[in-house]
């Protein structure tokens, strides 16, 4: 029975939900801003996976178009976020977000 089981879209959607949960835990637990960005990337990839899985399930190419735009926006977000991190880190030597609580510069 197991040998003929084919992965359906539901399997991929459940995997993407688990991946999103892991990314959420990472954002809440880790304090290094770079790692928090990586966890945000994990969450974005979970959403991309569910877009593609649903796109093939309901036979509509628009899901893949949405993934295309998510990729572009994610790239822009990482560029701007890393620029902010670099300009903050240039003045401070610490690498945790807890030390950035004050907006004093």
């Amino acid at each position, binding site marked *: 029975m197991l040998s003929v089981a084919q992965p359906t879209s539901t*399997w991929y959607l459940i995997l993407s939900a688990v991946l999103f949960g892991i990314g959420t835990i990472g954002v809440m*637990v880790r304090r290094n801003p770079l790692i928090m960005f990586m966890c945000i990337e994990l969450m974005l990839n979970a959403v991309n996976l569910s877009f593609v899985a649903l796109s093939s399930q309901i036979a509509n190419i628009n899901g893949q178009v949405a993934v295309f735009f998510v990729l*572009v926006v994610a790239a822009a977000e990482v560029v701007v976020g890393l620029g902010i991190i670099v300009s903050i880190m*240039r003045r401070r030597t610490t690498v945790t977000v807890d030390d950035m609580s004050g907006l004093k510069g």
Partner: protein
Amino acid sequence: MELFVFVVAAAMVLAGAVGVVTRSNPVHAAMSLVLTLFGIAVMFVAHNAHFLAAVQVIVYAGAIVVLFLFVIMLLGVDKAEDLSVEPITNQRPLAAIIGVGISAIVIAAIISSRAGLGASGQGVNQTTVDSPDANIRQLARVIFSDNVFAFEITSVLLLVAVIGTVVMARKTKSVGTGK
């Protein structure tokens, strides 16, 4: 065969994701992120999204992770972080409860609504030996017809991101006054 691909790719994705969250060294976390992104790309191929799989490898595993590694090396934070202390009391159990809760809610919604999803579009072209560019043709047709305005806005977004990063990361003479 499809089951085998799913199991291997899912193992890659989950192992990489857990690695990103648990590795104390940022470089190791970035490498785990590459593992996850490749697993996602394999799943894209399994869903006949060949163009997106290529873009995933080039943009994510290529550009974005290299950018992360550059910043890690530039800032010199490639040291292992002390993960034994909890900054806020009970932060990790609460985070685990919230994360597992979000996953559980989404999984419950998926399972309860899986029967209601039928085919609603014109179909996704399958890439075959006879038409190796079926997926990219179909995707391009939709992007450059229905979504051409969003596509043009995307180029403006990228331009704004580039200019903003250059302005932010540039060293100016007056910056040092705060220190």
